[in-house]
């Protein structure tokens, strides 16, 4: 079984002056057999280092890696039954496509030449590059090279595929095409895959589950939708979703959440009433962060309750399918937050708008730890009624 377990993986680098950099800290993830797991996070979060540890291109400072039931973190890379697709494809420029794809089999197996040949032919056919087999990488386009890199990995028939941002060197259109194709391929091959990217769109659309890292620490491992609707902490909430979630620092005062940023009077103070349930989930916390996704803010005709706020539209971003409205609490306020409305709706800059923030849709995070105290309830979007 190709179940991949990462157990408290840690990686510490020492630089020349003896200082230590903790690149990865106690990351534990259990990846099921055949699962497509995406490691996502901002630059420098440790996702590539984690991937390289799985590959064996980095030694493990602490922790364990298990494939199936075997511990592999002390094995050489070539003995781990793992194939990797690099961001730069790392093809051998002086060999043909066939040569590139055969190399791994020639070096690490005793397979006879004709068997290798057949395997390479079949894989090339599956990837649609059969007619490129006799060409060299320099004669290929970016997309074609990417397929060759994929083919090189597939041909090895490994237990695990590792992919390090394989799509980031492609242009946008090619990227979305390849995204779909990669998914299809992975389903057909049913091989456990660990995929690294910094692009949260790729993460959301491709992964069975996503693992979000920041600063070397694992923030959350969940399905994309879970991460979206039930983020474990503020970082995940802000990282997933485009445009990203709006955050307000608030103080808990009785049954109100008060947003009163010091020294910025134009940013708009507001008071948000909360229900008893919400107050309970806040427990003893006095300071929290209120989060609300742009698409959960409704623009209504007039203010009806304490959860409706008068705002002025500062900037409108018409995206076609929707409009992103940057709203400020006063006409010249510097701080704005984002609300998303349907694309057919006509909204103009400078126009007043009443923003409704339904309580069922708010997220609350501890102001100090960032941990999620309450997430939105997963309800049918058509049935959002403000409740007290």
């Amino acid at each position, binding site marked *: 079984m190709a179940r991949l377990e990462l157990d408290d993986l840690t990686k510490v680098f020492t630089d020349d002056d003896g200082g230590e950099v903790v690149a990865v800290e106690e990351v534990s993830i259990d990846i099921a057999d055949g699962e497509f797991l995406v490691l996502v996070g901002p630059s420098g979060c440790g996702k590539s280092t984690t991937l390289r540890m799985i590959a064996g291109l980095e030694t493990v400072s602490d922790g364990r890696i298990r494939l199936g039931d075997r511990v592999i973190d002390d094995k050489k890379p070539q003995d781990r039954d793992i194939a990797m697709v690099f961001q730069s494809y*790392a093809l*051998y420029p*002086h060999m043909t496509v066939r040569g590139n794809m055969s190399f791994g089999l020639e070096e690490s197996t005793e397979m006879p030449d004709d068997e290798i040949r057949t395997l390479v032919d079949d894989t090339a056919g599956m990837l649609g590059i059969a007619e490129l087999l006799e060409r060299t990488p320099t004669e290929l386009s970016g997309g074609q090279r990417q397929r060759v890199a994929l083919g090189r990995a597939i041909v090895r028939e490994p237990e695990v595929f590792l992919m390090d941002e394989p799509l980031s060197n492609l242009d946008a259109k090619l990227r979305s095409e390849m995204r779909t194709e990669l998914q299809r391929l992975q389903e057909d091959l049913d091989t456990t895959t660990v995929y690294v990217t910094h692009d949260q769109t790729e993460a959301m659309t491709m992964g069975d589950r996503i693992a979000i890292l920041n600063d070397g620490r694992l923030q959350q491992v969940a399905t994309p939708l879970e991460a979206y609707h039930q983020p474990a902490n503020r970082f995940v909430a802000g990282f997933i979703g485009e445009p990203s979630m709006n955050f307000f620092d608030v103080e808990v005062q009785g049954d109100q959440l008060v947003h009163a940023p010091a020294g910025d009077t134009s940013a708009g103070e507001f008071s948000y009433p909360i229900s008893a349930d919400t107050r309970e989930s806040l427990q003893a916390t006095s300071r929290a962060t209120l989060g609300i996704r742009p698409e959960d803010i409704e623009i209504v005709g007039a203010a009806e309750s304490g959860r409706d706020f008068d705002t002025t539209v500062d900037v409108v971003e018409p995206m076609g399918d929707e409009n992103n409205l940057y709203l400020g609490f006063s006409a010249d306020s510097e701080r704005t937050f984002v609300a998303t409305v349907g694309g057919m709706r006509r909204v103009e800059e400078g126009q007043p708008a009443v923003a409704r923030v339904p309580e069922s849709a708010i997220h609350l995070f501890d102001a100090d730890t960032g941990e999620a105290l309450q997430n939105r309830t997963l309800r049918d979007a058509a049935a959002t009624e403000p409740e007290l």
Partner: protein
Amino acid sequence: MSTVDEAAEERFSINPARVGLYLTLGGLLVFFLAPIETGVVTSLKTPDAVGTTSPLVPSVEGFTLDNYATAVSELLPGMVNSLLYAVPATILSALFGSFAAYGLTLTDWRGQIGVLLLFVAGIFIPYQAVLVPLTRLFSVLGLSTLGIWGLLGIDNAYAGIVELIITHTAYGIPICAILFRSYYKGMSEEMLESARLDGATVRRAYRRIVFPLSTPMFAVVLIYQFTQIWNDLLFALVLVQAESSAAAPVTLILAGLGASQSGTIFGLRMAGAFVAALPTLAVYVLFGEEFAKGVAT
């Protein structure tokens, strides 16, 4: 790409600055070519003509090819000898340089920098500092006393050729290694990691990936090294010693060519200089790019 971004028109207009520029360039041309020009001219003159005509002007009456004839007959054996050690030493030092650079750059182990420092320093060490031990070593080894020379019917002075091969290989390795290192530093690390993941050992990775991709650098190194080794006098002098020796390299013979009691026969010397310089000049003209690259590193 030049540092000066001048308008295209300036290239064609009669601009006093440009005129001055080209005059300077021309002057430099004269400076660099003058010795060679006078060499050519003189090499085609009889000794009388040399004494009587201006050194810069060719002479019609005193025209002769005798100088070249003599030069060739005197120098040809020397050129063969030079070739005998220059070619193997060039190839060997280049190969070893590539190996060393590979082991020191594209693999990973502690202490690489220390070894590299020694290599870099090794490039700059004046050869005088090793001459005496070198001659001592070779006399102790007694290569010239081996029976093999008699067996093959070769003058045992050719042991000097073998010594020269060994010497030039060993002293050529540092510069070759450094040249290759700068090239290998630019190689894709991910490509080699991929090879490792694919199961290639350090040796196979060299044979199947690094070596084939080193071809451009080999061209540079071979050309540069050949020039350096062919042009060397010091080792030739020390290890072969007599220009009358059967194994005398061309530089050694040239040094004493054309010296007679009554002064120097310049015509012969000039002819000799050209004949001796021919191989490296040819290499330079044909492969100037590579030579310049080797020099600039």
